């Protein structure tokens, strides 16, 4: 199987879907002539022209609104937010428009858009450029939210998202674009509503998505050396949130850890933990442990920034403590 980076896997997904369906078009800031801030859209304007790869002004509300209005008239737009940090000026379009239009108009229309949002921290970009907002999106009925962590899932979920008839928030992490892995050629579709065990284990269930999935998998390897068998569940499908593999895993391990880059309060881990308590309370041997970003505006200083985001060591320490093995 070909080895691709997440960046190239996403690029391949976009290219294939644009070749397959003439109604698919891309829009965003500097995605065309400039090839994209993170080069995910590299070469696509050259291949498909300016109509299908639309460079927009720096105006996030019009980017999302244009996508919605075009989708309502039959197209399948894929909008790129240069980074997720800028989506805050477009949140009205995301929530009040994209997510609500179908329901508030009694099912009279659908809004098949994809909004790609590169995000996450760890690059010394400080408070305004280091956000993770998937929990905001996942709070909203009407949106689907996915956050793949591997190249194969990046491709397969983006293709599925483009074909989906709902607004899909497609969460990418700036720190993983260069991560490589096997990616099936051609028609590779990954469902938007299925989470998956990425590494089997018996002692503790670790739930993580996007970049933290890679951190969790890395930690699981080390834990193995320390005599702890960790099962890692990829939480790539955040809304609808597929809890089935988590519950099944927790019934076996009796222990659960959640890992996310975003802030802890009201976060992804909070929701996963609540669902575990609701569905598998009696199977737990200990409370669910939550690992998350420190609750500060992200600091610039390298040492401080490192403290602000979860790392492999946090997962190892937490797992050992949870299992009483420290």
């Amino acid at each position, binding site marked *: 199987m070909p080895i691709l980076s997440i960046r190239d896997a996403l690029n391949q997904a976009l290219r294939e879907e644009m070749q397959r369906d003439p109604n698919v*078009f891309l829009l965003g800031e500097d995605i065309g002539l400039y090839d994209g801030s993170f080069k995910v859209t590299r070469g696509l304007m050259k291949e498909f022209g300016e*109509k299908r790869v*639309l460079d*927009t*002004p720096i*105006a996030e*509300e*019009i980017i*999302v*609104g*244009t*996508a*919605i*209005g*075009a*989708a*309502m*008239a*039959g*197209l399948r*737009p894929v909008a790129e937010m240069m980074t997720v940090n800028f989506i805050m*000026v477009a949140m*009205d*379009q995301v929530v*009040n*428009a994209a997510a609500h*239009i*179908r*329901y*508030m*108009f*009694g*099912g*009279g*229309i*659908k809004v*098949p858009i994809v909004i790609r949002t590169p995000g996450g921290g760890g690059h010394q970009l400080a408070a305004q450029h280091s956000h993770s907002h998937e929990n905001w999106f996942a709070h909203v*009925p*009407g949106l*689907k939210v996915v956050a793949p962590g591997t190249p194969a899932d990046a491709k397969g979920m983006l293709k599925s998202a483009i074909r*989906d*008839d*709902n607004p899909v928030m497609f969460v990418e992490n700036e720190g993983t674009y260069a991560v490589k892995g096997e990616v099936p050629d051609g028609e590779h579709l990954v469902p938007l*509503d299925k989470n998956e065990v990425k590494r089997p284990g018996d002692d503790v269930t670790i739930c993580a998505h996007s970049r933290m999935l890679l951190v969790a998998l890395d930690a699981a390897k080390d834990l193995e050396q320390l005599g702890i068998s960790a099962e890692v569940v990829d939480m790539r499908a955040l809304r*609808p949130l597929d809890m089935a593999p988590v519950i099944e895993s927790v019934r076996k391990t009796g222990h659960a850890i959640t890992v996310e880059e975003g802030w802890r309060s009201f976060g992804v881990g909070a929701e996963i933990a609540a669902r575990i308590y609701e569905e598998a309370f009696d199977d737990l041997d200990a409370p669910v442990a939550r690992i998350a970003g420190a609750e500060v505006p992200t600091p610039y200083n390298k040492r401080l920034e490192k403290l602000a985001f979860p790392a492999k060591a946090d997962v190892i320490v937490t797992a050992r403590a949870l299992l009483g093995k420290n």
Partner: protein
Amino acid sequence: MKLDQRPTETARVLSDKSTLLKLYREMLLIRRFEEKTAEMYQMAKIGGFCHLNIGEEATIVGTVSALRKEDYVYSNYREHGHAIAKGVDAKAIMAELFGKETGTSHGRGGSMHLFDHDRRFFGGYAIVGEALPLACGTGYAIRYQDKPEVVMSMFGDGATNIGAFHESLNVAKLWKLPVVFVIINNQYGMGTAVSRASAVTELWKKALAYDMTGERVDGMDVLAVRQVTDRLVAQARDQHEPSLLECVTYRYRGHSMSDPDTYRGKQEVTEWKERDSILKFGEYLKRERLASDRDLEAMDVEVMAEVDAAVKFADESPEPDPKDLFRDVYADEAAS
């Protein structure tokens, strides 16, 4: 120009008697529909926010009547009349106000969220300025698919001060989108007069910043509105040139049904009512011998019967089924 100074020119543009009578009938239908809506609101048949179009009929009918069936309208929360003018069934509108399953949005939207896919009435939106970007998106799709269609985006004077308005005008001109932006300048955004909210009080001038066609018209004169709209729609359709049309009009009632209306003088309201568009257009039709008093009265009786039938339909229609609470959150039911 005053109506009576311009009969021949207008008659050329709208030489057809039946068209003129149809315009009058639609204005009257909106007026009677809204009066009945107020009544039903007071009887608590209608809940939530409820904003009426009374006073704005000439602006609404003059603009929307210039569109074809396949053209799109995006509107705001003050949109009952806009929907009627686009051909949406009065019965389904009243049923929506009543929150019934037979309403335009199956009782999920209410007064502020009317919608009709087939009539291409693409919705009432309750966030000021929100639908302008959507209109641009639909305009982009029209160009993308190379269709001969036009989008009309309707909003208030207050909406010309929000960011989405400016982002929309910019891309409409930049990307040559077939969108006609219609400002329904009824002098107030809730209780705030235009002069207290906008640095530029001739709102059409905001088009100048985007090198776009800007027009201002007497929004109480249906033929004047229709005439200028015809031109702007043709410009959008044939040349993909967007435009900004300011219709100067007035709402006779408060901002919404719950507005005690304390921020403007009674005299001001009276003066605008003296220029009432339905009254003036009726006088014009009589003067031109296109209709008699009896004709207009008969039309009124007919229109009121239509409104009564809408109320009856709404009243007798079923409520949404509680088991359908989650229907249509997603396009695929499994996800709901």
